[in-house]
């Protein structure tokens, strides 16, 4: 399946700006926040007034993505989110506790359901098409891609796929208590410079218009998506990745660039380190979570980045210090695991 267009709002200046790389935004704390556009230019202000931040961000990216692809109504809308609309969920829960179950405003409840974003997009576009939402932790976005692949094989010709997760003050406070983030916090640009425990909090959304039609305007082609769950050890992980390559009839050396989900936590990153020695020896690789932070659907950001790298055949300097990477990038593998529970592989290539 082809990526006809892609749009993302992230902690970097990615919106309407595929070559954000020239200017990487630095964060001093360990919480990266999305850089949001002026919504008044994108969505009717009467509508944005009631929308929470993640709804606004996602709807804006979805509209930009469709606009870029020159598609008025996609034939399917599929979203993936681990947490859903956290801000509205937190608001309703807080009101419920503070007001002791007395009558509350329904707005936060109505907008807290996980399918709100897919629904809002359908409502704005008056789009009756297939509409589905996956809520499967850190492979929610990969589930959505798999659904899109099946839909395209079922003669649905255009599918809008998006991944989104937000971090709120409450979710940050909670996740910080679980020891997920670095203490003391450091700069995102130095995430991989010292071996220590913890990562940095991230968030974002990325939307893709996927189609079954080849065109020179397409950004890239998604060749395969695969996930696996709780591998027994590094040998099994390695074996599962090898069988992924075998199923695609390619060799590991056919990969021009590997994008891995290193997040700065020593224990987490040990898996990538071992695989680089066992499997990916000599394959040029880059990281991405120093740009967007760690969050469940971060692979949607990685896919946005990988597709733009393939299209422009260019790895910006901040990601490629010393310029040691290949000068022709035809095939990119995105490999991510989240706390060694869900692992995912997304293989993309030039069209």
């Amino acid at each position, binding site marked *: 399946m082809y990526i006809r267009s892609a749009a993302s709002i992230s902690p970097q200046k990615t919106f309407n700006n595929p070559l954000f790389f020239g200017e990487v935004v630095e964060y001093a704390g360990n919480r990266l926040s999305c850089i949001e556009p002026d919504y008044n230019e994108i969505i009717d202000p009467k509508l944005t007034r009631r929308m929470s931040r993640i709804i606004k961000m996602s709807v804006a990216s979805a509209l930009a993505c469709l606009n870029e692809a020159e598609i008025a109504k996609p034939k399917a*809308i599929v979203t993936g989110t*681990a*947490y*859903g609309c956290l801000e509205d969920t937190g608001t*309703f*829960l*807080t009101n*419920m*506790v*503070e007001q*002791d*179950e007395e*009558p*509350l*405003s*329904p707005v936060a*409840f*109505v*907008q*807290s*359901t*996980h*399918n*709100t974003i*897919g*629904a*809002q997009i*359908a*409502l704005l*576009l*008056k*789009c*009756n*098409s*297939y*509409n*589905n*939402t*996956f*809520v*499967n*932790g850190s*492979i*929610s976005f990969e*589930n959505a891609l*798999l*659904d899109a692949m*099946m839909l395209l*094989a*079922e003669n649905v010709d255009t599918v809008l796929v998006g991944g989104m997760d937000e971090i709120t003050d*409450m979710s940050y*406070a*909670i996740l910080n*208590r*679980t020891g997920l983030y670095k203490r003391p916090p450091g700069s995102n640009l130095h995430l991989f410079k010292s071996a220590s425990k913890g990562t940095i909090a991230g968030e974002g959304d990325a939307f893709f218009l996927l189609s079954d039609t080849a065109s020179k305007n397409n950004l890239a082609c998604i060749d395969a998506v695969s996930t696996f*769950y*709780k591998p027994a050890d590094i040998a099994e992980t390695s074996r599962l990745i090898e069988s992924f390559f075998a199923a695609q009839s390619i060799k590991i050396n056919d990969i021009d660039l590997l994008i891995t989900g290193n997040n700065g936590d020593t224990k987490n990153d040990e898996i990538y380190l071992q695989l680089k020695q066992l499997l990916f020896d000599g394959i040029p690789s880059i990281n991405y979570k120093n740009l967007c932070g760690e969050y*469940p659907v971060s692979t949607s950001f990685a896919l946005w980045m990988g597709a733009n790298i393939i299209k422009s055949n260019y790895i910006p300097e901040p990601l490629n210090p010393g310029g040691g990477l290949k000068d022709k990038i035809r095939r990119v593998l995105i490999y991510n695991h989240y706390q060694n*529970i869900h692992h995912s592989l997304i293989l993309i290539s030039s069209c």
Partner: protein
Amino acid sequence: MNAAVFVAGAGVISGIGNNVSECLSALGSSTAGIDRIKYLRTNHQGLLPASEVRLSNTELALLSGFSSSTSRNVMLSMIAAKEALDGSGINNLPALRTGIVSATTIGGMDKTENFFIDFAAGRSKGRLRDLIYHECGNVTVAVAEKLGIKHHVSTISTACSSSANAIMYGARLIKHNILDAVIAGGTDALTRFTLNGFNTLLILDEQYCRPFDENRRGLNLGEGAGYIVLVSERVAAALKNNPDCSLSGYCNFNDAYHQTASSPNGDGPYGAMMGALQMSGLQPKDIDYINLHGTGTQNNDSSEGAAIKRLFGPYYPKMSSTKTFTGHTLGASAGIEAVFSAMAIKEGIVYPNLRLQTPMAELPFVPETSFSRNQELKHVLSNSFGFGGNCSSLIFSKN
């Protein structure tokens, strides 16, 4: 891509029983599960009736094999999924690619809302272990692990149509030759979050709900889980007991009208039912029974009714809302009703729409008011519509 997908097993737990046979027995004796709230701690106890599973968390723990501190939603899911899997006979077949596609709208919210009582008083308060199942996906993963399912685990959340979409997605994974067998359906425990949420929308009936009645006042919430086991033709042929029915059609269609309300003409419900009919190659007259979404709200029943009138008139199949027994179990409802639909075909039975006194004046048809046996049902349509305009219909056909 049009390969048949068979229903090899079914499992259910709801306010009317802890397994398929208990539920069928309650359906046969017109015994509703709606009652005064007993297990959920809420200020609305005694004010808002609901259909709770009649087991405490300690009792659910014994049945499910989880510890009693686990989210109630995980335990409900486990009990119904295991019944479906055990009954399917697929465990006796070697080396199948087996997956689980489960739906839920609230994940482990029953635990999260307890956490929040402390957390609201201070950000350093509340037991973090109460949040383990907050993410919907963790509910599915916990059940998948206990059932030993590794090939595919996914979770869907599209409000009240969630488990219809899980069943559809499971069927497609088989048709695309990604899996041989799938446990598909959904689960939702009753929580203060949803009870208060629906209460703020002023669509809860303070008495027992009366779907498709002229004087209906709203819905009653329920809880439970329902799963079917879908298998490919090859697996079906290898099973000791031949499956009684197949999933012959389905459609996911968005109403695109309003975040919570359904369109007055029922465009979403009409599109979903029409799409499912087209896929199965059937005409409206071929449908023998409709398991209605039938929540009992003014809006749903008139929208769903308008769509049925447009699509089926002037000849109407038998129909009823089994939410008059189980309440509206949200993310579990289409899973539970898929089980009831499959059992209707297998047993040749049609369920009553309880408490119907005055049929809706605007509709030319009346749902069934009594239980009937010895029915020859070839095709059953099951409807599920939800917030966000998500409308899905499934068709089960006798083999």
